[in-house]
């Protein structure tokens, strides 16, 4: 198959798991003999070239909080409309790639920052078949103005957009639909995955009296529950437990959070260890440097790749009971689920420390199921089948972008939408002023 992949970022330029997963799937599809081309944005820092990666999209950097917060209100709104609604330049880049690469199917990833509605609108207009990996609620995010979903856009999306969606959890699909955006077509849940060779089974697990080594990795923010983890550490000490440590890997997004361990008197137990490359983290799990992976993330967490990797190597996940990954694993069988409070986290850690919870069987069962059901080798055939199903829907006629006027019309519509949205923003701004 000829597969055109669209992603806002692509490693080595990345923010989180969304883009890393994209690269892993692309590499796997290439290894399976598919012809894959990735279309992504100009990198935010220099990247080495790769034959199958075109970095031609323009990214409206909605991820740069400093940039966003320091922009004038009008500039911010225009940037936002280009990020989520339409960026005619990016539609042009897409049309150019469709014409040159002639894909059988387009594989969509995160479209935030690219004017995603314009891209999906273009594909719909030209009847190009697509499959959309949903590692987050991107469709409803694209229908937003500021923090609210615009009913008119949600309604149009629901009415016009039709394809194959692959959300990483039911939570993601539900959140999109509860925002008023209906996912028309086929919705097939597919979890995230692990890579690599299954290691020998872990033989040594935590025993009462040992130091309980807790780890967490990812964005170090309150939405990920890192503050709750520090507070849980303080509660453990209040309850007389000293034999534990918490290592936190990732960029600390709030300075008040960095100070919290010292403020609560647990800086001897809780350590922010900064950003750690994925390979190094996996190495630490392989060497069994940790017993528990704490994941007290917000309930709207779509999935969570980091805990899956840790659990694959025998680290038991203690997680928020209703986040995305919790749908895929069973409490007290593969993991420990808890309410999202410091009190409840401290209770679970306390029971482990006292020997009331035996980590070994949980870790063994989770590791076995992850290497069997959550390995990319297991997941990839599902992805290939979805891509092939979409490709078969392609019209037998000449591709739409090559039909007379097809691409020109799509580009004109993108220019119209781009300029119209800016005109509306200017009008609104003038009124407000």
């Amino acid at each position, binding site marked *: 198959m000829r597969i055109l992949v669209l992603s806002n970022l692509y490693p080595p330029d990345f923010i989180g798991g969304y883009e890393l997963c994209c690269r892993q799937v692309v590499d796997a599809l290439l290894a399976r003999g598919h012809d894959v081309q990735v279309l992504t944005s100009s990198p935010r820092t220099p990247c080495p070239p790769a034959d199958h990666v075109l970095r031609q999209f323009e990214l409206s950097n909605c991820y740069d909080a400093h940039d966003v917060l320091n922009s004038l209100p009008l500039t911010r709104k225009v940037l936002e409309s280009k990020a989520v609604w339409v960026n005619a330049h990016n539609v042009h880049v897409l049309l150019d790639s469709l014409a040159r690469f002639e894909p059988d199917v387009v594989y969509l990833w995160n479209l935030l920052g690219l004017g995603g509605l314009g891209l999906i609108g273009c594909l719909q207009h030209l009847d190009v078949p697509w499959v959309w990996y949903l590692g987050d609620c991107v469709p409803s995010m694209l229908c937003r103005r500021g923090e609210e979903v615009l009913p008119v856009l949600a309604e149009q999306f629901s009415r016009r957009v039709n394809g194959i969606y692959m959300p990483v959890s039911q939570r993601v699909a539900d959140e999109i639909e509860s925002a008023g955006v209906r996912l028309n077509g086929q919705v097939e849940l597919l979890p995230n995955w692990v890579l690599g060779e299954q290691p020998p089974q872990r033989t040594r697990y935590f025993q009462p009296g040992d130091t309980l080594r807790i780890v967490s990795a990812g964005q170090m923010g309150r939405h990920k529950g890192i503050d709750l983890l520090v507070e849980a550490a303080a509660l453990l000490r209040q309850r007389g437990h000293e034999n534990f440590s918490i290592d936190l890997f990732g960029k600390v997004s709030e300075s008040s959070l960095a100070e919290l361990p010292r403020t609560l008197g647990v800086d001897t137990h809780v350590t922010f260890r900064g950003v750690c490359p994925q390979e190094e983290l996996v190495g630490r799990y392989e060497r069994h440097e940790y017993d528990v992976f704490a994941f007290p993330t917000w309930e709207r967490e779509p999935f969570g790749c980091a805990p899956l990797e840790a659990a694959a190597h025998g680290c038991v996940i203690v997680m928020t009971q209703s986040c995305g990954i919790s749908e895929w694993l069973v409490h007290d069988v593969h993991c420990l689920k808890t309410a999202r409070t410091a009190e409840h986290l401290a209770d679970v850690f306390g029971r482990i420390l006292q020997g009331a919870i035996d980590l070994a069987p949980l870790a063994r069962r989770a590791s076995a199921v992850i290497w069997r059901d959550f390995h990319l080798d297991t997941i990839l055939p599902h992805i290939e089948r979805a891509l092939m199903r979409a490709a078969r829907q392609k019209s037998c006629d000449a591709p739409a972008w090559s039909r007379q006027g097809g691409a020109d019309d799509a580009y*004109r519509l993108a220019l119209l939408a781009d300029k*119209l949205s800016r005109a509306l923003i200017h009008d609104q701004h003038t*009124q407000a002023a």
Partner: protein
Amino acid sequence: MKPITVAYLGLLDNDRATGTRRAEEHLIRLAQAVVAAAGFGLTVELISAGETPGRQTVSAGVVRTVLPLAGNPQAPWNAVSWQLPEALSRVDLVHLHDGYSRLGEAALLIAKQSHLPVCITEYGLTGHWLSSELGLAELADVIICHTPQVARRLTTGRTVEVVPCKLDPSRLGIPGVPPRQTIHDRQDGVSTDDRAAGERLFAIYQRLIGSTLEAAA
């Protein structure tokens, strides 16, 4: 068979600029002629956005719909409504009677995304900056000209149909060349040969809707 509905947009904002009802009267006459040519088996819905939203039947087969305004437009031609997509969801064809109003541009975008056939009337005048800059008439399935002279001046790959209609659009109060939003407004009356224009337009609509249904099948 489902009754056909054609949406008319454009020109109506001109009445707010001139304080007259000349554009509306022109479109109503044209719509009535089309409905009569169709043997009253067709509805024409005249759609605009304004401060007093509502929907009323003007005559058999002719409906006037005013959608609620989104925001507070700076100029009459900048009026737009969030309810436009809903309004267009019940029509079979969109005919834009000007190339410069924002509601018309939005309607063009929605209609093309919905794969609805689109007619655009081209008067041969410089209209709104956006339409001229982007050559939006190129998105029409059929460009309607009221005089052969205007049709001859067009350089387009699109189908151009001449539908004779003695109409001087400047009498309807079109916006001036941007950035100045002056109004060209002559006071003399409008005279049209409505019956013939109605028959011609009905034939064009029938053909376009027929080919859309064929493509969908």
